[in-house]
């Protein structure tokens, strides 16, 4: 962990517009030595400061094997992310982290992997997909399922094409198709029937809206997946990243230090859906 409290300066190296409201920022620490030492696990998050506007938690969406720079995929949804979207190449932000647990990929060797993502939930998973792609020979069959609202919201088209070339089973679906959309329609759980490998030797990683996670887990359990095989990354309000502010408290766990990646076994015991 790099300093629990003080944000360290980082510079925006490049910006790419993914969809109308989503941009991917490539950043690097101003202190080159820090950047050299930097490492993270897919699924971990960092706190980004836009000076004068505030701080927000965001998952890392770049490969853990390419740490010359760090990429964040950010949707313009609130005050601070809006300020972030106005920044240009060469401007500076503050970074703290990485925080939280990641996906324990080293434990998944020789297994088939199923990625289930909804909307911008693909961003934290992309880091894990890159990692699997890097060590492809160590894993079995790989599937990437992706669901979003409209064809305009589809993220990372280039990456998806690349993954398809690598023989990954890439399936996407939208809720509201347009005339040009040739793929699937409906929710992401509808894609499960197109994935044909046995539950026994498969690991599932899920990230998306909490409703999507909830129903994905239900459907997968019906298909015979055990809790130990399924991991989900949860979204919560976070202000500190180190268990100080208590915003991300879920039952007797903190999403920032015990999560954001939880095993489905833990999720079952936690009051994820409180009234």
């Amino acid at each position, binding site marked *: 962990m790099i300093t629990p409290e003080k944000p360290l300066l980082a510079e925006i190296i490049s910006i790419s517009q993914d969809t109308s409201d989503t941009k991917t920022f490539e950043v690097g620490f101003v202190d080159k030595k820090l950047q050299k030492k930097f490492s993270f696990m897919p699924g971990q998050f960092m706190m980004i400061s836009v000076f004068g506007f505030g701080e927000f938690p965001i998952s890392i969406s770049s490969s853990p094997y390419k740490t010359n720079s760090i990429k964040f995929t950010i949707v313009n949804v609130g005050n601070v992310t809006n300020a972030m979207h106005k920044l240009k190449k060469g401007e500076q932000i503050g970074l703290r982290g990485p925080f939280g647990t990641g996906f324990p990929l080293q434990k998944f060797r020789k297994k088939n992997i199923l990625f289930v993502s909804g909307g911008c939930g693909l961003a934290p998973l992309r880091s894990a997909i890159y990692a699997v792609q890097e060590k492809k020979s160590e894993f079995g069959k790989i599937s990437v399922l992706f669901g979003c609202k409209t064809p305009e919201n589809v993220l990372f088209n280039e990456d998806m094409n690349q993954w398809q070339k690598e023989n990954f089973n890439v399936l996407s679906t939208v809720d509201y198709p347009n005339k040009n959309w040739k793929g699937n329609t409906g929710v992401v759980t509808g894609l499960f029937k197109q994935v044909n490998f046995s539950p026994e030797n498969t690991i599932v990683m899920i990230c998306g809206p909490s409703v999507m996670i909830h129903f994905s887990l239900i459907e997968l359990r019906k298909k015979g997946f055990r809790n130990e095989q399924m991991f989900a990354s949860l979204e919560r309000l976070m*202000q500190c990243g180190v268990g100080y502010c208590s915003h991300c408290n879920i039952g007797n766990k903190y999403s920032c230090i015990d999560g954001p990646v939880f095993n489905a076994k833990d999720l079952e015991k936690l009051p994820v859906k409180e009234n």
Partner: protein
Amino acid sequence: MNYILKKEDFPKFLELLKKKFGKVIVPAKNETGATCFQSYSGQELFLESRTDFSAKEFFRPAKEKMFSFKKKSSSFEVKSEHDNTKKVLFGIRPCGTHALSTLDELFIKFLGEDNFYSDKRKNTIIIALQCNEACENGFCTSMGTSQASGHDLLFIERGHDFFVRAETKQGTDLLDPTLFKHTSDAEPSSKIECKNELDIEGLGENLYANFNHSVWKEESERCLSCTSCTQSCPTCYCYTSNDEFVFGSGTESERFRVLDSCQLQRFTKVSGNHVFRPSREGRLRQFVLHKFSYYKKYHGMHLCVGCGRCITACPVKISLVDIANKIQKHPLEFQKHSLEAKK
């Protein structure tokens, strides 16, 4: 070593401290009539009972500056705040000293030091004042916090004088020999009996197992989400961080952390306006469980010192002692209603 301080010498002692340290914090009434801790400037002290507001303000202020950012051409300068002013806190009650040791667990021992807290903590000399009577709604005897701990000096009021017990060298150094005289008197008994009683045997586990108990709904129905409980609590520390521009500067901004309250909906609101704890039932449960269950799991102690301030402050008389006792006496059958069984 024990000492005696005559009551007529007490103002002299405070003046002496003020001269030496510049800042002495004492319990007194504020302009609205509420009792709280404030800087000493000759005002009348409030020594009858514990204050309405805790000494939290001097360790975890309601609004605390963390960083200042200054834009310099294309780069930023990030400065961390340090508060190195020495001060003396007089009149904190035993429950208050325990509240500080409880917060130490999180902000000093858990993941390394939080400088904003530990600066203030290390630069403050603590003079505790023993309670001779139980206060309204307090339940410190149940929580094991009726005797002070972690303080430098302990004052016990005895009619015409104070009996003073020195605990640390830092504390002994404050005892001016012209005012304080050695004594061989036995220490006055400081046993108090609280009317409120809480059964803390297995409390954390039991409350968590009764996550779906009907008492949460029953009690929260009259809750107003006014946050009086979390504001008056000496251990409630949850915060939100805010950035603010320095007015008129154009290149400077500052980051503050502001005490937040789990009783508000916005406490769990994420982008897209999704609220994870929308009902008062869930938020009241969060308050009680954080105190007795979650904090204990991580830090080995309750986040409650039994001062009873939340009960006194509540306008609709919701009492966490009542809630906890109801569950302790009539828990749901674990198998039937527990969280795990519901899924």
